[in-house]
């Protein structure tokens, strides 16, 4: 069975500093992995997706994530945080044949001015 663990419920960084949101997954096969972002009172937006092509995936708004099979990790990074990045971020793994998504608990990213 698949599962996702987001290692931090909250991450606080200063504007202009790097962002690291950590995610570990468990899957019995090669998974599809996603990061979604949810801004306050807004819908969910797809940031990026990994589907066994390149292990380094570039997404929107300067975010990227690296798939590391040996560590079963899919951490999300950004070189320089912006105030508009303040939001909830969800790491997600896709189940096998039914396309259902297994959701992490979410990480709230706080940006300090």
């Amino acid at each position, binding site marked *: 069975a698949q599962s996702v663990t987001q290692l931090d419920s909250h991450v606080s960084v200063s504007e202009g500093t790097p962002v690291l949101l950590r995610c570990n997954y468990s899957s019995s096969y090669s998974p599809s992995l996603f990061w979604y972002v949810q801004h306050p009172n807004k*819908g969910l937006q*797809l940031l990026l997706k990994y589907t066994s092509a390149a292990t380094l995936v570039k997404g929107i708004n300067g975010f990227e994530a690296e798939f590391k099979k040996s560590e079963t990790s899919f951490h999300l990074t950004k070189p320089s945080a912006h105030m508009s990045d303040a939001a909830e971020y*969800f790491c997600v793994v*896709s189940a096998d044949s039914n*396309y259902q998504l297994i959701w992490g608990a979410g990480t709230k990213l706080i940006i300090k001015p």
Partner: protein
Amino acid sequence: SAVISQKPSRDICQRGTSLTIQCQVDSQVTMMFWYRQQPGQSLTLIATANQGSEATYESGFVIDKFPISRPNLTFSTLTVSNMSPEDSSIYLCSALAAQETQYFGPGTRLLVL
């Protein structure tokens, strides 16, 4: 990608009543999903809705409480029946679009008094 709209965006309802949420996709899709998101929490899948077949419900969700319609490849409805305050939540629909990626609507914020 797919653009998804939901109606209503929010509602306040009295206990014992029912509310039907509509979800419209801008392209034809095979699979649509309905989720619930409690305040400050991650998403929980309610059911999968495929056109031409009965919806498939997850554990803890039943058709009598959350009847779903899927009359065509671009539209679905979720009804929250006989509401109680515990049903207060955000309800989201999603569609499985190209490259096996789910795209989400903006959500319906429901408050039951």
